[in-house]
């Protein structure tokens, strides 16, 4: 395969690629999962290959880019950057495929711990505390801004690191800052949401007096026990609907 050195392009279109990465899950499906979105995001970085081998290299790379992929959406850029760089470096197609497959698990797991079970509940918990303390809209605005500073920074870092490391992208995942952030995010999330819950209880239960307050405590405590005990089958949604149905029935019968 003819290799096109990355030095032939001094400024890869990382900005355009980043913009497309914001839509990476737009065509999520059960066949290729994020694959199509990955191909769309990678395409600007592959355009330099159009001249090589009468376009065969470009088309083959693009086809590989749209194959099955599933990872955390914010970290997809790492795989996009790494595989695009590997294609430019002339790495054989089968090796690029193996690289993509190998990245799915680690990027999914890292992103889930760092974002879904870390940064998101931390910032959401802080916003809940803010609203409960009467901050109102500024708390919501603060949540959107702070969360997205981290969100965009992570996407940008991932894409740049992927492009910089290429096939050696595993090294990027060993960066000390990332390791530290992953280690800290779990305890920080647990503490912040722990603080938020009693504060929110007070905020939401303000309108309840007398027997209804006691009933609320029983419903909430019983619900936690039931959801924990039946965690494999019972979801918050089903529990909520069932409890509301019982409440509507009780309210109708006991007038």
């Amino acid at each position, binding site marked *: 395969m003819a290799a096109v050195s990355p030095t032939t392009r001094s400024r890869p279109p990382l900005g355009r690629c980043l913009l497309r990465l914001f839509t990476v899950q737009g065509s999520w499906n059960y066949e290729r999962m994020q694959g199509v979105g990955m191909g769309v995001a990678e395409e600007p970085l592959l355009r330099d290959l159009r001249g090589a081998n009468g376009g065969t290299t470009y088309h083959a790379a693009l086809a590989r880019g749209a194959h099955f992929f599933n990872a955390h959406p914010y970290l997809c850029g790492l795989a996009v950057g790494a595989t695009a760089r590997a294609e430019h470096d002339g790495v054989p197609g089968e090796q690029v495929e193996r690289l993509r497959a190998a990245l799915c698990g680690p990027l999914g797991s890292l992103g889930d711990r760092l974002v879904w079970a870390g940064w998101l509940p931390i910032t959401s918990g802080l916003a809940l505390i803010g609203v409960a303390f009467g901050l109102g809209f500024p708390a919501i605005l603060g949540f959107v801004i702070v969360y997205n500073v981290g969100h965009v920074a992570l996407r940008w870092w991932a894409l740049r690191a992927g492009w910089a490391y290429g096939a050696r992208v595993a090294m990027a995942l060993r960066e000390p800052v990332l390791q530290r952030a992953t280690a800290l995010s779990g305890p920080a999330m*647990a*503490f912040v949401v*722990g603080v938020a819950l009693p504060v929110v209880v007070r905020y939401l239960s303000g309108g309840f007096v007398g027997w209804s307050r006691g009933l609320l405590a029983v*419903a909430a405590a019983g619900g936690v026990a039931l959801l924990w005990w039946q965690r494999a089958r019972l979801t918050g949604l089903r529990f909520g*609907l069932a409890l509301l149905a019982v409440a509507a029935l*009780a309210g109708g019968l006991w007038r």
Partner: protein
Amino acid sequence: MSLDTQLFLLAWGTLVGLDLVSVPQMMIARPLVAGPIAGAILGDVPIGLELGVLFELFQLDILPMGATRYPEYGPATVAAVSVAHAAGNVAAGLGLGALVGLITAMVGGLTLHAIRVLNARAVHRATAALEAGDASVLARLHVTAIGRDAARAAFVTAVGLGLASVTREYLGGTLPPRGVTFLNVAAVGAALAAGTAGTLRLVGRGPGFRWFAAGVISGVVVAWLR
């Protein structure tokens, strides 16, 4: 409620639904954001904040990993705020809003699954072009899928607002005070239970649990001092 307001709510719900998975995942789909903005559209931010907090607790029960199926609480919160606002105050509309919201969230979850199946069929049909590395087919597939998700989000919001309208029409003002209280207790109790159980699942039994316990104790002290 005027048609203009309904259309604004529909547009907001569509953006919120699109943000959940497709574009750009900046978390306007979180109930904590979707609720207050819906409240602002209706000129009633406090009710939006209260329902936003309520559904944010339900949202804590969800981890949107990979191919997992989950309810969609963004457009659901928009519909819930619409019901609660029509009831006149939080005390009268919280439970009814939660009822409409939870049903809408369930519908949203079902449509998410349906859209993924439709996308898979479209991708399957285009396999030959995709394997040939055809950039235009790739882009068309992607853009069409985003459009499909926007239509889905609009549909879910419309269903929610329709349910809200029916609820306002047939249930608003007909429930006895005790029935309203029962519904409110059920809504808040279920939300607190879902939020706590979801967090406990996330935290696990390891060292994270100690941090969670420390947080709860601190939160109790803070709430008591206020």
